[in-house]
């Protein structure tokens, strides 16, 4: 697998035992589910719905780990932590933007992976 900046598919390759169809299935699920979670987090942040924002960030966390997006691990943890304590709304907004930007880069790389293994 090529070297990518945002993603690391070592876990996914090991989990699927290099089965390309399986890998594509999980990557496609992530490409479908992650943008929904990011939009939900943005809406929840705008509404000050901290408890549900914490839950959404919490749900996104393992998905990022499965795609090996290590650079966002701390950011998503901070969102979960701050939302859980209903503090730093401005900081949370910035952190969500970081997750969105990072994920957008990851989406591009993941689509390239899909094209390659399809």
């Amino acid at each position, binding site marked *: 697998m090529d070297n990518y900046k945002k993603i690391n598919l070592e*876990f996914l390759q090991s*989990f699927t035992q290099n089965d390309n169809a*399986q890998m594509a*299935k*999980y990557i496609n*699920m*992530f490409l479908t*589910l992650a943008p929904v979670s990011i939009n939900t987090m943005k809406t929840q942040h705008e509404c000050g719905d901290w408890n*549900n924002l914490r*839950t*959404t960030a*919490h*749900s996104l*966390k*393992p*998905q990022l*780990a*499965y795609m090996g997006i290590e650079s966002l691990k701390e950011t998503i943890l901070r969102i979960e932590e701050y939302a859980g304590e209903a503090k730093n709304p401005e900081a949370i907004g910035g952190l969500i933007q970081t997750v969105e930007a990072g994920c957008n880069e990851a989406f591009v790389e993941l689509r390239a992976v899909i094209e390659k293994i399809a």
Partner: protein
Amino acid sequence: MNKEVVFIVDDEPMHAQMMEDHLASKYPNFKIYKYSTGEECNDNMDKHPTIVVLDYHLDAVNKSARTGLETLIHLKKKYDHIDVIMISGQDKIDVAVECVREGAFDYVVKGPSAFVRTEQAFEKLFKHRQVIHELAKYKKLNRTLTFSIIGIIALAAIFWATGIIG
């Protein structure tokens, strides 16, 4: 072990799918069903699950859904024989302790290691069941032996009292 019916109850579709695929590849004889809420799990109890792999939250998508912990409490109250393995993104010890106190057999943290850890929890569960089974067998044997010895002593006492022996 061949007749296990496993419920995966998780509202995160990707994790649930990966868990289903992993368990299906490791245990091809198991019947595996996937549900996204505790309510749905409860509605399908006629499938007689033996193991439930249950997410701690369950209300990430449907905010009014019963949480995983509430589902665990409900399951253990109504179906104590079902073994529950809790799964959560939280690696906090107090959450794990709470789940085990409410009757969960084991607690697994969500993430790349969760699949192997769940498999290990299954193996631990099968060994635990084996020990319980052996223990029940020995208890039965112990009871039989005790009654036999009491019977022999009683017979000997009767024979001795009636002068047949001694």
